[in-house]
């Protein structure tokens, strides 16, 4: 019963729309698809989307792990509130995040006015896109690393110290290796989210073609021009990228289970 329900649900909201998309893309034919996607503006947008998402996911892997560490290992005043705030990017409408970031990072904004004299422009550049993607992808790494980190006892670190390992050796040989699968999973999730992110990015990106225009925006533009074939082609490519990432995530998970599942 519950299995049937879950499968029906999955079919209605995921499989049928995806199949429709794949069918439409197939109707274009490989040559047609290639022609639409190799349009320089499309290629540039895909590149911007993918590279900014990659940069943001990398930043999140580092800072998310650090944040998870702080949340698990330190007991400070307001820790629970801080912990709850991590999920805010999940809960908040992404457009709100985008507008807030834009106002803060624009050259006249709270942070932007300090960066402008240094020659750093955030809003309306790819850097702005990265900032927005870091904001929306942040919870993924924190929330995947946190539970694994809680499993690693402080005693493990203490034992490492008694065996003569310095702090650096303890972190790199004892603490981080068991976290790697979780960090990679969080990284992949943040990356997947970043590639498809729309709401928070379009306000801060400036949307200059060939410079700070993201692929999802280009889909919307194509749709507004009634160019359904063009929109479908971009969507199909993005779908392919997403699938690839899902495979990678699953691969990492099964690898990590084999490696650490006995614990």
């Amino acid at each position, binding site marked *: 019963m519950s299995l049937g329900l879950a499968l029906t649900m999955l079919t209605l909201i995921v499989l049928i729309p995806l199949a429709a998309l794949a069918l439409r893309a197939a109707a274009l034919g490989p040559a047609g698809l290639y022609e639409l996607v190799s349009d320089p503006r499309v290629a540039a947008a895909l590149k911007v989307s993918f590279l900014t998402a990659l940069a943001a996911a990398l930043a999140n892997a580092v800072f998310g792990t650090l944040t998870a560490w702080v949340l698990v290992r330190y007991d400070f005043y307001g820790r629970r509130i801080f912990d709850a705030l991590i999920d805010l990017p999940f809960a908040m409408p992404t457009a709100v995040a985008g507008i807030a970031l834009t106002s803060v990072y624009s050259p006249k904004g709270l942070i932007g006015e300090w960066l402008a004299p240094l020659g750093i422009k955030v809003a309306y550049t790819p850097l702005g896109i990265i900032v927005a993607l870091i904001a929306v992808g942040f919870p993924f790494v924190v929330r995947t690393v946190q539970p694994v980190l809680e499993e690693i006892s402080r*005693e493990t670190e*203490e034992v*490492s110290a*008694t*065996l003569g*390992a310095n702090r650096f050796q303890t972190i790199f040989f004892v603490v981080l*290796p*068991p976290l790697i699968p979780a960090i990679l999973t969080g990284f992949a999730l943040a990356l997947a989210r970043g590639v498809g992110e729309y709401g928070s990015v379009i306000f801060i990106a400036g949307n200059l073609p060939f410079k700070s225009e993201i692929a999802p925006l280009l889909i919307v533009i194509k749709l507004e021009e009634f160019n359904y074939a063009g929109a479908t082609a971009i969507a199909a490519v993005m779908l392919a990228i997403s699938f690839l990432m899902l495979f990678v995530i699953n691969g990492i998970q099964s690898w990590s289970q084999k490696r650490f*599942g006995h614990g």
Partner: protein
Amino acid sequence: MDIRIDKIRKEFGDFPALHDVSLNIRSGELIALLGPSGSGKTTLLRLVAGLEYPSQGRILFGEEDASWKSVQERNVGFVFQHYALFKHMTVFDNVAFGLRVRGSETRPPKAEIRRRVEELIDMVQLSGMEGRYPGQLSGGQRQRVALARAMAIEPRVLLLDEPFGALDAKVRKDLRKWLREFHDRTGHTTLFVTHDQEEALELADRVVVMSQGKIEQVGSADDIYDRPQSAFVFSFVGDSARLPVTVANGDVNFKGGATGLRTSVGNGEKHIFFRPRDIVLQDDGPAFEGRIVSMRRLAGARIAEIDAGLGEGAERVEIELPLGVPAEQGSLIRFLPHRFAIF
């Protein structure tokens, strides 16, 4: 390695965990730190390891003041109750860890590391399991890996925190015996923390009984069990019975009446302590008197719970009755301890 703990105080915030604790440990001794939870025994062990630093006092390794040495510099082997093995490393890598993290000038060559690790794995009887991960081992095996790992760095002292606490009774007994043999073979100065008195008495050369951040008594198993020096030690180690008494000029009085017992303890309101089996039943003459509240049968004797309050508040003690003595619930019993202590 001789270890001297010299007037150590340790406070966590406002909470005093140890008050002026001093202890001399001779090289090669196997010492048990025995006490209830919160007695400060684990804190003392962690201070010796360098995982905590004292608020006052000194810890000497031989002649060297180690009080402020870092845990890495102290070169101690530490084994935790829950093993704290590195789960992502094989048994071999776990044991080799302490040698591999050494600086290049003191790190043995690869082949030498391999030889020593294999020797240690053999010593803890885990040959053939080098390639396994901790998750594939039983509790007792994991604890032996933890021990081999600690031994790999040739520690000056071996520190074990409740080493058998997480194991079931059978494995615990085996491993206890095994550890004693292991210690006799390797001769390492060893301190282990336990709340299990049987373990402490059976295993250790000397037992350190601790309570509320103080050392109550240090001595052999016989000293601790037969000559307890404080009310705490008497009641914590072994079964004991306790009754309130008044001491007047060496006479021990109970509920206003003489008991015929004599003591060298000074006058005042005191408590008499004795083992349940160290009693003689009395037909007449001065004695403790009480009514049997309940009885239960052990293998070779009966344990009677007695209310010696005689109507003036409950004073319950348990004593051992020989099987031949006619007694039942409600019977009046008169007895005197033939060995006792008054605190």
